[in-house]
């Protein structure tokens, strides 16, 4: 955890929850786990405000607490990972919208907006929102089914309801209890929506980030293979992944063997995949022989079975990302050197010049530039015989990928922070004109409701002069660009975090309780 990360976190809190929550949040980030009165002291806020801020943060699962030694006092600590994930919410919503259409989207939005919520509340609110949407007819049962589907697919999970009367309750829920299926009768839903009678068996639900990340990971892998080989290979990988979930936990490094016969049957059933079905064996062969070895043969039994090497794929993708970053940052010659060092593990500068075919001087400059920016490392090996002069040791360049990944991750946080800062400052600089636009818009809306004529509306619209309009358009474009790059930056962060998760088996940024 770095100060850069902390800055991003506090910015997110500031933007979404306001100053007080941000103050409490950054205090927890700086001082680590602390009890209530410490927070009050550090932040200089009135107790009631601190309490309120903590409540909000706990509600959104951004702060967690454990009993102090004195069991009547709780120690609060920040869940930075979850705060960071707020940047990824739009991606989750798009993902669900693709799978479950508008109903799923609205339900997910409700859960995300409230942190956690009871089943009754989710269904009630979603129904009302869907009703307001234009040309949309929705039945209660349909909505219930979508909700159930989200639970079955484990996009939603239960939260623990504290029981007993300890001063500081512990919030733990076992893996098994997380996804217990609720029983919601159709009649109950009807009663709920029409007469606002809560469900008989109330249950509380929150979002299961891990499941979303699993989907995002699969999407990433499939799109990578589609780009490298072709669409059919992407489809094949998709089928492989689907078959993997039947017998393997989602985050295993390698899948259990998948019988090829099963994959064949599934693909045959999908009518759209003629080409793939015809050349299935060849496609499997191509994928197996690919440089990154994504699938490997496990055995011959039952027509052959294959394993997916998820960890290796991710590692390969991360290498490629880093290489591309080097390419963009230092140009193609440097990328060539970087890749050469990767292939040779340890390599002397002279060899680099020869193999990469770069003039000695330039090769040296690029090597030391990469070294300066921490992309490569130097290993010195002393010659035993001579201990003076310029040739007293061999110099080898090498790459420590884990270190590079962490360093690049820092760079991502920094870029994110910069982009967000810039966005805020653009907003502040143009505050006057944005406010004016908003004021005009509200007046227009009000007038429309009152039934004003076209002429009147046009008059009001003219309050914004053409140069102002141009400026507004430019601001809009700027905001769009910054928002987009923010999302794309998060893509990089996601991949790098996946790498760390796989290589260190740490539950980094994916902690869900």
């Amino acid at each position, binding site marked *: 955890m770095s100060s850069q990360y902390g800055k991003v976190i506090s910015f997110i809190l500031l933007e979404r929850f306001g100053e007080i929550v941000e103050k409490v949040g950054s205090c927890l980030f700086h001082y680590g786990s602390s009890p209530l009165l410490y927070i009050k002291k550090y932040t200089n806020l009135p107790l009631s405000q601190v309490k309120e801020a903590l409540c909000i943060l706990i509600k959104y699962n951004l702060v967690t607490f454990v009993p102090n030694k004195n069991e009547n006092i709780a120690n609060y600590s920040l869940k930075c990972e979850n705060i960071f994930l707020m940047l990824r919410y739009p991606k989750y919503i798009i993902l669900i919208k693709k799978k479950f259409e508008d109903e799923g989207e609205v339900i997910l939005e409700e859960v995300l907006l409230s942190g956690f919520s009871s089943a009754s509340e989710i269904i009630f609110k979603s129904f009302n929102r869907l009703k307001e949407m234009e040309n949309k007819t929705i039945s209660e049962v349909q909505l219930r089914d979508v909700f159930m589907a989200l639970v079955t697919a484990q996009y939603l999970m239960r939260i623990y309801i504290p029981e007993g009367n300890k001063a500081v309750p512990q919030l733990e829920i076992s893996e098994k209890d997380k996804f217990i299926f609720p029983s919601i009768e159709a009649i109950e839903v009807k009663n709920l929506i029409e007469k606002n009678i809560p469900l008989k068996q109330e249950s509380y639900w929150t979002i299961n980030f891990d499941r979303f990340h699993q989907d995002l990971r699969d999407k990433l892998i499939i799109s990578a293979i589609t780009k490298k080989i072709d669409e059919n290979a992407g489809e094949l990988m998709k089928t492989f992944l689907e078959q993997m979930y039947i017998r393997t936990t989602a985050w295993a490094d390698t899948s259990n063997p998948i019988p090829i016969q099963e994959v064949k049957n599934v693909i045959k059933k999908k009518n759209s995949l003629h080409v793939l079905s015809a050349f299935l064996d*060849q496609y499997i062969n191509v994928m197996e022989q690919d440089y990154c070895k994504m699938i490997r043969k496990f055995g011959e039994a039952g027509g052959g079975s294959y394993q997916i090497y998820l960890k290796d794929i991710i590692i390969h993708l991360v290498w490629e990302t880093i290489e591309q970053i080097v390419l963009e940052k230092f140009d193609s010659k440097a990328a060539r050197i970087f890749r*050469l060092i990767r292939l040779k593990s340890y390599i002397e500068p002279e060899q680099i010049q020869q193999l990469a075919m770069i003039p000695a001087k330039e090769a040296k400059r690029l090597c030391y530039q990469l070294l300066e920016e921490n992309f490569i490392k130097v290993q010195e090996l002393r010659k035993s015989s001579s201990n003076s002069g310029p040739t007293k040791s061999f110099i080898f360049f090498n790459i420590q990928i884990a270190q590079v990944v962490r360093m690049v991750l820092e760079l991502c946080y920094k870029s994110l922070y910069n982009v967000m800062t810039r966005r805020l400052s653009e907003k502040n600089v143009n505050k006057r004109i944005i406010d004016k636009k908003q004021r005009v818009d509200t007046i227009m809306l009000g007038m429309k409701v009152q039934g004003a004529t076209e002429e009147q509306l046009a008059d009001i619209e003219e309050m914004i002069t053409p140069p102002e309009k141009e400026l507004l358009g430019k601001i809009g474009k700027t905001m769009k660009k910054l928002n987009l790059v923010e999302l794309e930056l998060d893509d990089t962060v996601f991949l790098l975090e996946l790498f760390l998760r796989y290589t260190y088996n740490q539950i980094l940024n994916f902690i869900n309780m």
Partner: protein
Amino acid sequence: MSKIKEPEVGTSGSSVESQITALAQSKPEGISNEDIQSNLLNVTAETWTKSVNKLLKSGLLELFKVNNKLLYKYKDPSKKTVNKGSDNEEKVVYRIIEEAGNKGIWIRDIRFKSNLNMTQLNKVLKSLEAKKAIKAVKSVSASKKKVYMLYDLEPDSSVTGGAWYQDQDFESEFVDVLNQQCQRFLVQKQEEAQKLWGGPLIARNRSYVSAKDVHKFISELGISKVALNVQDIESILYTVVLDNNAERIVSPSGEFLYRAIKSFLPSPGLVKSTCGICPISHRCADSGFVNAKVCTYLTDWLNE
């Protein structure tokens, strides 16, 4: 160099001398006193030692000491003759340079081996150079380092750098052009294979090419002034592999095969913003001249 008259081996009338040279020529590893004795049975030791001494003096034979035994070796007179009329220092230096072959030898190493002092050595080298017995060649590995070698030798590629060097300068533009052409050829091959189709595996196998094919293509293009061999093309193709534009596999026959490939990922989000490629990002902070609010890089990018 062979213009200079050959030492009079045959015409001296001494058949003993010619016999000894013939013997020495037949045994390149050298002959010992015993060998001479056993081959020249009817010649007295006194006579043949005289001849041997004469030959040694004229430089046709060389004296070596191996395992405490004296060995005479034959020496080609055509290489030798240049030293006629030169002093001992020149001979020594000449021999050292000769030993270095076409790799050449650095002046400092000559000094160590010959035990001559700097001024003397410089004089000797100058005189040898004037006689066109040796020449100085600039090495590509260190531009200021001169190496000496015999005049009529072609410098080794490690000294000149091979086809990629012109007057000690690496021709990176030439390499870049070749790199692009090789890649173009690979991509072309791959597209042809895709067009023919017949299944992904067959298409892939068709798109592999060997360095020989590329060599032929490049030769026909005629972009190179110098003659390139397959080995040169092989090293160019390796740079294409290093650029992640091709992959290299070993064919069953043991040669390398190359194929154009695509990357897995589009360029990452990090480098789409200016911060990811910013050269001064480490100096960027909330305060100070370099900060995100007024960053010119960001402004330029936003105004694009």
